[in-house]
């Protein structure tokens, strides 16, 4: 017993700072946040009166919050769909060695190194639905202007200024920014498929489609899962980009739980802000915990 304690004692000691920091800043704060969400602290004045799950039921009954959840769903679906399509397409084209491959890869990935706040500046302009009336008709700007001048005027739209689909416009810059990341994941996945496997399939007379259907796609599914988890949880947390593109945090059209939590915080409604935080945590945990469990099991095998 003593000997065992001696061998793993130092390990635990070295990990101690991390265990304490993560224990306090992650787990204890999650509990504390949950506690605050059960109180009636709706103003800056401290209050510790417990109201049970009243804040949650009120939030879930609030049409604004319902709308923010609906927006979050649309955002996540469009964001995921877009990044997977572009990411896979780019990786698929670049998978075979080609001249200038490195250049294309670097360009597709570059938006990833820029902050949402910086890219939001330009996307705010691109996704502008403003029209200035001038002699000679209405004048648009940003992407609408570009679409008009290349003969695709029919595609002009209000972008994010739409209560139902506006949030999908926010997914456009998010897709622009993260497709390169998904491409990099898929490229790594392609590289992990042994050449012998493809050769064997080709010798067996597999058509290209069957080769993909039965050999390549199954091999890529773990990568695909990683991509879905990473993009999915980024989408649930997305905040910066919306703040950068839409000046007013309380804009109904693009409200998501993360921005609504900010609005509540600014308004000193700490209990509601904490409740929204907990709801977001539950949403993320539903996705991430099975994933972590799955990866740790895969590792054991």
């Amino acid at each position, binding site marked *: 017993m003593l000997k065992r304690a001696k061998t793993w004692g130092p390990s635990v000691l070295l990990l101690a700072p*991390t265990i304490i920091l993560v224990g306090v800043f992650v787990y204890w704060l999650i509990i504390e946040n949950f506690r605050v969400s059960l109180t009636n602290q709706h103003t800056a004045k401290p209050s510790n009166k417990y109201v049970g799950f009243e804040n949650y039921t009120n939030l879930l009954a609030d049409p604004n919050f319902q709308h923010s959840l609906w927006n979050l769903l649309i955002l996540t679906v469009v964001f995921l769909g877009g990044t997977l399509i572009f990411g896979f397409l*780019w990786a698929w084209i670049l998978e075979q060695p080609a001249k200038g491959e490195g250049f294309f890869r670097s360009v597709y990935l570059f938006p990833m190194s820029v902050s949402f706040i910086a890219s939001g500046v330009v996307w705010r*302009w691109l996704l502008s639905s403003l029209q200035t009336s001038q002699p000679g008709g209405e004048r648009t700007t940003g992407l609408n202007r570009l679409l008009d001048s290349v003969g695709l005027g029919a595609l002009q739209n209000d972008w994010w200024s739409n209560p139902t689909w506006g949030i999908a416009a926010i997914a456009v810059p998010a897709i622009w920014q993260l497709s390169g990341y998904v491409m990099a994941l898929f490229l790594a996945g392609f590289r992990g498929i042994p050449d012998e496997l493809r050769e064997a399939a080709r010798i067996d007379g597999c058509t290209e489609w069957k080769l993909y259907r039965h050999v390549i796609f199954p091999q890529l599914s773990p990568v695909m899962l990683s991509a879905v988890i990473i993009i999915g949880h980024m989408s649930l947390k997305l905040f910066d980009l919306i703040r950068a593109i839409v000046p007013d945090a309380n804009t109904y059209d693009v409200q998501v739980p993360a921005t609504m939590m900010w609005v509540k915080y600014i308004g000193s409604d700490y209990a509601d802000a904490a409740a929204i935080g907990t709801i*977001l945590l539950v949403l993320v945990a539903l996705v991430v915990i099975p994933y972590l469990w799955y990866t740790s099991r895969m590792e054991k095998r």
Partner: protein
Amino acid sequence: MATATVNNKNRARSAQDMASDAKRTTKRRINRTLKYALLIFFVIMVLLPAYVLFITSFKGTADADPSRAWYLPQVWETGGWVKAWTTLAPSLGRTVMLVVPSAIISSFLGSINGYVLSKWKFPGANIIFTLILFGMFIPYQAVMIPLTQLVSDLGVPQGIPSLMLLHIVYGIPICTLIFRNYYASVPDELIEAARMDGAGILRTYGSVILPVSAPGFVVVLIWQFTSAWNDYLFAAFFSSGRNGPVTIALSFLAGGQLTDYAASMAGALIASVPTLIVYILLGKYFVGGLMSGSVKG
């Protein structure tokens, strides 16, 4: 398909063979042209926002008309750049002061953790690792309210000091993950040999692990540098325009209903320069960090 059947039927006729060969080369050539056309089309799409940033940042009143929105400036004005620089300069200095120490400290913590969790495992080490890892995925909104309280209770001043603490603490999970994956490739025999020589956990770290850690540190430092530089969420909750990092200053410059687009686009470019330089010079390691974000590496 048609080519293949023709080919089988007339195997003997070499003229036919040559014709089909030529057909195949043309097909390949068309494929290749199509491929590059697609690749270049996507390059234009991806770079379009960068083009807009660049041209708009040099525009003055002469180019204010929306009809000129997508054209190069008629008059190249630097007024936007001057305004952006004077607005952002103080916050740029603060961001460097924030990002460099927090990247260094969290990567050291991550290195120690990764080492212990891959080479000196103890009962329950894997559970601890998964618990640490979960900290990487939590939406920070779920801890923000009590966190603001905790940071002020600890007496850490608003602005750079609080943000430094937060970037270190919440950077630990990803740094630990990257180093744990990285050290998994260090042969256990090296550790065993050091143990046989009577080296303890720290001596082994210093003599065996640290000397081979450089690539791991590059990946982690770049990752932490970039994510701390680009952070806005913590900055919004824990700092103000007066004491905050560049993302906050930029959001004030670009925010509001009436935006000076030349200045805010110049500001966006200025704020992105450091991370872009890192990406261009050390892209390989940057991608390495991205990959480890997918847990399995």
